[in-house]
């Protein structure tokens, strides 16, 4: 092995990739069961994308609406997901979320309170009752800090600013990962008896996104490359309200809590257009519906000056707005020169969340590969065709805990991993290749082109023609990405890091496009102009993607029938 390819090795029982809500919750659970745990993350600890979650955490605590219970939460989630969710996940999620919230509180989280001292809950799109436990509009920060401190207290090993580029296997079993330190560029090999992927979403493949630089689909691509199956990859959520002006902040999230607290959407003529699209739920309709409504208003010429809609909360008292939505107040004041207590915001859809992901067992988060688990946004199934706001933070806790538990237990039974050096050498060679080419392309250019292409061809509304064109464009981008070049040294080199991230973005983009092309109907976040109806036949199956040789193989899997107990709950729909 060349000196450049040398690496350090760390051995643990459980390796967790990603330090957002799901990864940290998984780590805490594995630690609590006696496992030695490593958490590896691309950013500093506490900066993961969970920190940006604003509106709240959905759990049927029934602190305000006494009629709420897990059944109602399950029903809302399942209907919101257009009944394509893994019903067992939706059930477990609804049943366990309140306990996960109480647990957070016992670890020091401080939620906003009701008059009698309980956790306060707010209304949100698609939720029948006031269900979102929150801290103003910075719920994600509260959650990540609480989990981070709990993990530090229990004693996990954290490898910050360290990027995994490949999963390592012992035979068929996933038994570790290959990574580089972002600061020095040096390589690391992690050996573990079980690996949990909690790397979040894929939004960075689109131009307009609320996602941070980290959301490059790493976990899904790593799992796919290692042979795991991906599920529901056609379902990408465009959040209805991102900032649209000025250009530098385009896509940055405007929390749904604005609408939860009474915000009203209007077009340029002042018309409250949600009355047309969903007269019953208005602004608190599900995200897929509100995003399409805004998009349609803009497309038909009724948009705001910068191509969005107006979102207005200024009819509420200024002090109330500042208390309940402090970061929105500051965000608009400082970045867009808009005082939201006095006038409307301009908002438009922004790529926000991936419903699809690694195909997992509902109870354990076990992927289709031995030794590999997944939780949170990186895992698929829980949210079906559309996620309800607030269900993500609860998902992270419920399934982060379950995956951590299962990984910890499997590690207790597991044997010491053996990693052959060939796969490590290949990983090192791939990582260094962008330096070795005498000429090649700037990775920022390829990323830019990918984002524009996905935005234009695999966006909110899709057609056969666009999606086919997208696949052709993706093939060209893949060729270009093979010839990507990094300048400078290995020391903290974002250009080199992007060379590696691009490969994974291309994998998840291609999976998304293939699945979107195959699903010939419209359902939830997946809207086909050429197949505008939701078809019963398509409601009976999910789409799965797996690697076959070098090609992406797509197949249908029939959905298991709903048990009578859950059917009954759905029938009680009001």
């Amino acid at each position, binding site marked *: 092995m060349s000196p450049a390819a040398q690496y350090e090795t760390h051995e643990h029982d459980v390796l967790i990739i990603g330090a957002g809500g799901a990864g940290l919750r998984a780590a805490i659970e594995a630690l609590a069961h006696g496992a030695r745990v490593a958490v590896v993350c691309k*950013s*500093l*600890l506490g*900066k*993961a*994308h969970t*920190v*940006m979650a604003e509106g709240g955490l959905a759990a049927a605590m029934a602190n305000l609406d006494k009629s709420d219970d897990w059944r109602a939460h399950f029903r809302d989630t399942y209907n919101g997901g257009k009944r394509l969710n893994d019903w067992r996940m939706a059930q477990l999620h609804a049943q366990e979320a309140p306990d996960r919230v*109480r647990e957070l*509180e*016992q*670890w*020091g989280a*401080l939620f*906003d*309170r009701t008059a*009698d*001292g*309980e956790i306060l809950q707010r209304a949100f799109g698609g939720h029948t009752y006031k269900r979102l436990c929150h*801290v103003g509009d*910075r719920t*994600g*920060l509260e959650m990540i*800090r609480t989990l981070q*401190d*709990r993990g*530090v207290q229990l004693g996990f090993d954290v490898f*910050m600013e360290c990027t995994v580029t490949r999963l390592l296997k012992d035979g068929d079993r996933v038994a570790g990962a290959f990574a580089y330190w972002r*600061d020095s560029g040096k390589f690391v090999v992690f050996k573990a008896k079980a690996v949990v992927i909690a790397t979040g979403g894929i939004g960075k493949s689109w131009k307009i996104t609320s996602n*941070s*630089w980290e959301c490059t689909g790493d976990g899904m691509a790593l799992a796919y490359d290692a042979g795991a199956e991906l599920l529901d990859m056609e379902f990408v959520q465009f959040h209805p309200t991102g900032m649209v*002006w*000025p*250009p*530098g*902040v385009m896509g*940055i*999230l405007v929390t749904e809590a604005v609408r939860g607290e009474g915000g009203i959407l209007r077009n340029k003529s002042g018309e409250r257009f949600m009355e047309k699209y969903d007269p019953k739920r208005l602004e608190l309709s599900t995200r897929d519906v509100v995003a399409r409504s805004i998009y349609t208003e803009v497309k038909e010429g009724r948009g705001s000056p910068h191509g969005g809609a107006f979102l207005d909360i200024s009819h509420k008292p200024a002090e109330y707005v500042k208390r309940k939505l402090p*970061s929105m107040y*500051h*965000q608009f004041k*400082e*970045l*867009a*020169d808009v005082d939201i207590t006095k006038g409307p915001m301009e908002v438009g859809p922004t790529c926000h969340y991936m419903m699809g992901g690694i195909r997992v067992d509902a109870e354990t988060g076990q992927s289709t590969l031995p030794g590999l688990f997944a939780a949170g946004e990186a895992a698929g199934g829980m949210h079906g065709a559309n996620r309800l706001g607030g269900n993500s933070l609860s998902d992270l806790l419920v399934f982060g805990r379950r995956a951590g538990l299962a990984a910890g237990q499997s590690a207790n039974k597991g044997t010491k991993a053996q990693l052959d050096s060939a796969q490590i050498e290949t990983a090192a060679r791939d990582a260094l290749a962008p330096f070795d080419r005498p000429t090649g392309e*700037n*990775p*920022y250019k390829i990323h*830019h082109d990918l984002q524009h292409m996905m935005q234009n061809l695999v966006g909110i509304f899709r057609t056969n023609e666009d999606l086919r064109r997208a696949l052709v464009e993706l093939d060209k981008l893949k060729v270009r990405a093979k010839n990507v070049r*990094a*300048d*400078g*040294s290995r*020391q*903290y*080199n*974002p*250009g*080199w890091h*992007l060379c590696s991230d691009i490969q994974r973005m291309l994998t998840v983009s291609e999976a998304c496009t293939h699945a979107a092309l195959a699903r010939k109907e419209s359902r939830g976040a997946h809207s086909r102009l050429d197949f505008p109806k939701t078809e019963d036949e398509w409601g009976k199956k999910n789409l799965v993607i797996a690697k076959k040789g070098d090609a992406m193989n797509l197949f249908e899997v029939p959905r298991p029938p709903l048990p009578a107990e859950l059917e009954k709950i759905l029938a009680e729909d009001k």
Partner: protein
Amino acid sequence: MAETTATLRVFRGDAETGKAVDYQVPLTPGMVVLDAIHSIQANQSPDLAVRWNCKAAKCGSCSAEVNGRPRLMCKTRMDSLPLDQPITVFPMKAFPVIKDLVTDVSWNYEVNKKITPFQPRPGVEWKMDQADVDRVQEFRKCIECFLCQNVCHVLREHDKKKEFGGPRFFVRSAGLEMHPLDGANRTRVLREQLGIGYCNITKCCTEVCPEEIHITDNAIIPLKERVVDEFYDPLTMIVRKIFGAK
């Protein structure tokens, strides 16, 4: 007439050596300094190192010194700066440089480990008044940008990283100490491990906090009072002398 380009004078280098390099960047409406840095990365120098995540002042990653003032780059509008002269962008001074604008902030994570974690009083009922919670929520707004650490002269000028925890960790301690249901006592840790006595209340930390936390008035001073009450109260000292330290 408005300028169409700006000059950014950015520190390029590492722990050993470095220099300021000028870059011309086209201006766009509403542009922030971080946008300008990203523009340099994409078009001129892909290996320019910078930390960032959310670009919305929620994660506290992109701290730097812009025209000599410690700021979040994502929150610093270009049109708030004098564009007829170069805008200097340098890494935080109180921490060792890794490369360009990225500094080694790992010391902060080590300090954090010294703080006694949240310990609910046994048998508490999990009910709290919003008024009591408000006080602590102010501290929990902290996004760990470490700008307060960067400007604190105990760290910046005197480099007392062994003896002193810094404002960030007084804020964290205050959030725990004033939690309505917490039962632990952190005064000894504050005095002996975090060296709260070194702080002489110059309020530099409060001035730079992007979350507008009243670090000095609401966190540090009340904690200092607790430490004084416990360790320097004359009556307690006499009791200690007679009966021995607890």
